[in-house]
């Protein structure tokens, strides 16, 4: 909301510098976002209030006139083109050198005087545009009649306008009076009340209109007053100025008064043209399903039966708390004004304005919850202004239907509770002062209790802690010391998946992968590049109703597209090896329940290894780099992995393996199928590995398997085996590694795979390095020969392997 400092000063004295006031309000009341200084550029010497004392025609130009002004230092003549200049007006007058906005170009420049059509001009009578107040350059700015001649304009018209965002529970802060009260409480100054007095005519409102509330659950109070014989015209300059500063457009005196009182009190008002109210009857009732009304903005709107309408004898004339109807609008022809000020159930107004997508100054206030006494207060304030500014006669009394009347709330606040919540004791006199300044009625009940009645305009106050907040924020949170939590620590929750996830993240980074984080929402096309139709779970992701953009419409069921996209994006900028990973969720739908958020590590790599000189162009990364990463990662967490060929959508067959822990598949590693890579604009071999953290968790050893290093030397032996080309090398290794004889164990590694010359067609040669070791003795050649013999026999039996060169 926009808050004018001048307006605020009408109700409370403020002598603080602006930044300090802003700081205090931020600390205790609401978020002051910024402020604007009106008249910051107005030179106090060169721009002053003056009076027009004569207007004569220009001798050489029909459109121009010669205007004589009294600016406090004698009369001066200027040439003026404004159509609205008239004798007796108070105007803003600038002399040479004043900094102004050029009325035509909009640029700031110093005023340079020169003869206009042959007549000298001593200065300039200013428009709003020239003062930087608005874009209005139609005529000159006319000041209030009481403005003192010679007064610097910056004193007359200068102001500070704060831009403040207020909280969702404080409708009272959407009015100047709310801020005046807060300012008074914070600074210790007294607050002044606006004028409410007005006279009443012999006519009675009650004779002119009847009001019925059919749905008291939605309409808790409805007041109506009548102002007869108003003269519709512009509202006074000061009112227009305040409306403009508050971001509202002046319309006419009647409409302006309703807006002005709303801005001042926070309570919305609505003026009807009384003569257009059919049947001289107002009914507040729920709409009939499908009922329609054209609102003030010219839009026809349709209602459901939970929306409250204001109707006259024949039909709807307004949407309660949101906007009036065009059929009863105040116009230039209006003579008599029916003024509605009501209180509606906040949730209902919010629902209506949300469903209609119609948020107005009124609905924003009603939905936050207004005081039930506010309608009456605002009526008196408005009637005071109607009498003063429209020449109308105020009919006697108010029609006041008040089905929602409630007894005044009393909240008991224990002094001990203040200390229990805030951590400090607040002196009784401070509690009393703060609450009284904020409009509470506060009785101290010795030895340690306050009986508190919150003011009507603070329906947000419900419990003792609400009162304690008001005490705390005005007393000042800067008075709170810092203390440390005491007491016993709760037991930690066990979260093996989370712990493993973080270890896996560390390991992936340690293995050279850069961590990335992608948006978890994607689109169907992207997802389907790596998810087959046959995977009915993953190909039916959860969609969102209102995505921020079309490419973020579905919760991803696979990280693969995200990572490939990241790879492609970086490939544009980076030569050489690229290794990226993400640890995140795939969101797997569950019928009528929240999705399963499965934790997955996905990594992609490709490109060429860095050379000695850190340049691209070394050997290409391949499947075995990806597999090596999986092996190291699993070794890092102590999980024994096995690999088996696998056919997987989006991967190149014959270059893809399933990662297994025990018998369970826990992931996949392989080359992305070039056709699929191409969908991501990747035109080089690229490899992807994926591990499901939740599945891995089940295979974590409780503690690392450990054996003491043998004190006896090991014996190394290289052998070459001939096997069928189709026999997986992993199988050979598996057998070699599992082979034991007595206390002798073998650790085996592969150091060559060879096909071609010297090896029969359909066969391959595998070179194995075997390390024999016993933990109880030094092995003899005989021992080794025996164990090796046994192994070869086994390999020959199980895999048809034969020892090469033997």
């Amino acid at each position, binding site marked *: 909301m926009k808050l004018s400092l001048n307006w605020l000063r009408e109700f409370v004295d403020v002598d603080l510098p602006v930044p300090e006031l802003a700081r205090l309000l931020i600390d205790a009341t609401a978020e002051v976002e910024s402020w604007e200084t009106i008249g910051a550029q107005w030179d106090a010497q060169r721009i002053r209030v003056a009076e027009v004392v004569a207007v004569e025609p220009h001798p050489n130009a029909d459109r121009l006139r010669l205007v004589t002004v009294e600016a406090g230092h004698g009369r001066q003549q200027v040439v003026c083109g404004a159509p609205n200049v008239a004798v007796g007006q108070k105007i803003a007058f600038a002399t040479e050198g004043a900094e102004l906005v050029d009325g035509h170009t909009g640029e700031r420049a110093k005023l340079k005087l020169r003869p206009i059509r042959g007549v000298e001009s001593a200065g300039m009578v200013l428009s709003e545009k020239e003062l930087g107040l608005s874009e209005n350059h139609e005529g000159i700015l006319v000041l209030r009649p009481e403005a003192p001649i010679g007064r610097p304009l910056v004193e007359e018209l200068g102001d500070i306008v704060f831009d403040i965002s207020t909280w969702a529970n404080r409708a009272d802060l959407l009015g100047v009076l709310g801020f005046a009260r807060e300012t008074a409480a914070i600074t210790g100054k007294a607050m002044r009340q606006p004028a409410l007095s007005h006279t009443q005519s012999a006519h009675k409102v009650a004779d002119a209109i009847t009001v019925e509330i059919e749905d008291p659950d939605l309409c808790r109070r409805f007041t109506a007053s009548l102002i007869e014989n108003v003269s519709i015209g512009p509202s006074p300059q000061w009112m227009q100025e305040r409306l403009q500063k508050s971001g509202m457009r002046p319309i006419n005196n009647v409409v302006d008064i309703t807006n002005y009182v709303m801005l001042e009190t926070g309570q919305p008002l609505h003026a009807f043209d009384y003569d257009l109210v059919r049947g001289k009857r107002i009914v507040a009732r729920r709409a009939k399903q499908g009922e329609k009304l054209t609102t003030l903005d010219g839009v026809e709107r349709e209602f459901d039966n939970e929306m409250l309408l204001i109707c006259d004898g024949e039909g709807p004339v307004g949407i309660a708390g949101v906007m009036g109807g065009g059929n009863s609008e105040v116009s230039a022809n209006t003579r008599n004004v029916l003024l509605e000020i009501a209180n509606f159930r906040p949730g209902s107004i919010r629902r209506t304005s949300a469903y209609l997508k119609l948020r107005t100054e009124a609905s924003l206030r009603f939905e936050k919850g207004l005081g039930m006494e506010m309608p009456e207060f605002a009526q008196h304030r408005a009637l005071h202004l109607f009498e003063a500014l429209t020449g109308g006669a105020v009919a006697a009394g108010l029609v006041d239907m008040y089905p929602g009347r409630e007894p005044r709330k009393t909240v008991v606040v224990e002094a001990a509770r203040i200390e229990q919540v805030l951590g400090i004791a607040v002196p009784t006199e401070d509690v009393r002062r703060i609450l009284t300044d904020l409009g509470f009625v506060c009785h101290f009940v010795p030895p340690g209790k306050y009986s508190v009645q919150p003011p009507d305009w603070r329906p947000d106050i419900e419990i003792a802690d609400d009162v304690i907040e008001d005490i705390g924020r005005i007393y000042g949170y800067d008075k709170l010391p810092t203390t440390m939590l005491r007491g016993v620590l709760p037991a930690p929750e066990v979260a093996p998946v989370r712990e493993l996830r973080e270890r896996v993240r560390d390991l992936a980074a340690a293995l050279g992968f850069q961590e990335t984080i992608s948006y*978890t929402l994607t689109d169907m096309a992207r997802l389907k590049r790596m998810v087959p139709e046959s995977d009915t779970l993953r190909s039916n992701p959860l969609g969102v109703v209102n995505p921020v953009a079309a490419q973020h419409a579905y919760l991803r069921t696979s990280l693969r597209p995200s990572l490939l996209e990241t790879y492609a994006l970086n490939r544009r900028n980076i030569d050489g090896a690229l290794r990226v990973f993400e640890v995140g969720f795939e969101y797997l739908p569950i019928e009528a329940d929240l999705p399963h958020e499965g934790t997955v590590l996905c990594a992609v790599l490709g490109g060429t290894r860095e050379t000695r000189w850190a340049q691209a162009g070394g050997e290409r990364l391949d499947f075995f780099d990806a597999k090596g990463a999986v092996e190291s990662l699993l070794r890092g967490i102590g999980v024994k992995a096995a690999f088996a060929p696998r056919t997987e959508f989006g991967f190149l067959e014959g270059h893809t393996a399933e990662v297994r822990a025990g018998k369970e598949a826990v992931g996949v590693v392989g080359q992305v199928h070039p056709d699929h890579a191409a969908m991501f604009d990747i035109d080089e071999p690229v490899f992807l590995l994926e591990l499901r953290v939740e599945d891995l968790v089940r295979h974590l050893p409780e503690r690392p398997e450990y054996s003491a290093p043998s004190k006896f030397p090991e014996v190394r032996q290289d052998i070459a085996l001939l096997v069928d080309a189709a026999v997986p090398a992993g199988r050979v290794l598996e057998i070699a590694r599992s082979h034991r004889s007595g206390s002798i164990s073998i650790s085996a590694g592969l150091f060559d795979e060879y096909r071609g010359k010297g090896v029969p067609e359909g066969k391959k040669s595998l070179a194995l390095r075997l390390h024999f070791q016993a933990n109880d003795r030094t092995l003899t050649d005989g021992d080794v020969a025996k164990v090796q013999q046994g192994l070869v026999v086994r390999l020959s039996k199980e895999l048809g392997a034969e020892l090469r060169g033997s």
Partner: protein
Amino acid sequence: MSVEPSLEGLREEALAALASASNEAGLEQWRITFFGRQEGRMTALLRSIKDRRVDERATFGANANRLKQELEGALEAKQQDLKDAALKALSTDSAIDVTLPGRPQVLGRLHPVTQTMRDCLKAFGDMGFRVAEGPEVEWDRYNFDGVRIPEDHPARDMWDTIWVNTLIEGKRHMLLRTHTSPNQVRVLERTPAPPVRVVVPGKCYRQEATDATHEWMLTQIEGLAVDEGVRMTDLKGVLYEWSRQMFGSDRKIIFHHSYFPFVEPGVEMAIDCFICRGDGRACHTCHGTGWIEILGAGMVHPEIIETAGYDSSRVTGFAFGLGVERVALLRWGIEDIRNFYANDVRFLQQF
């Protein structure tokens, strides 16, 4: 005692030959010449001791052995000299250009948001907060109703919600959590009695346009401490410690009034601007106010304590919620939040 002429001659010859040896090969040649097992001259000399007359044998033998020791010593010294010379040459003639680049090794890094998250969790962990996580896809009853934001409450405007397209009995209830606060309710629900002291990290989502300081996907940490005797001063103390750990030990903090339906009182916390140190002039970080808004917090609303089944007249609590990206932006002076999820490795590698 004089050395026999034959020994003296051998000695001079051997030392001269040793002096002229300039490398390992020369030394080896010398060793063979004088100490070779078969033909070595020194070896032969020693072997000839037994051929001496008995009365000469002792003296000659002693002299010969002394000479052997001397020559062996000389050889060792010469070897050492050559080794020293070689090392010297290594550090001078063969000195490498140490400014040449090292051989590349692979090194990955954690995402700056992950790093910042971990640093925050560590700071809170040191104060006894345990990590508890909750789902990103949530029910509205946890995200809103459970934290006192019923439908038709204007506070729902504080969070623009992305709704999931799933109808439960004809109504929309599933959403992407807009904050980590729903997990307050979940944690309390599964904790039969206080104390509770948790931090809840995780992603949140907002239906809003992105700019340099706003992202629609964001990472939050929610904190919750509930027990008898938890006071607002404790909240201030915990957040003060965290601020000092994240932004330097000379940080100052202030609370100012704020509103969140699930806390009472509600505050926003700001830290003093460590960029301009409050000199007020055109600071982009604090906009000249000297203070940087950093998180929202407050005392847990008694209604939430009661819903958990605890006695709100005895049990109090505090809660806070902070944006991890914002902390990362501030601590590293990053200007645009959109860098985090654009996944440009050239950016990510620098943290």
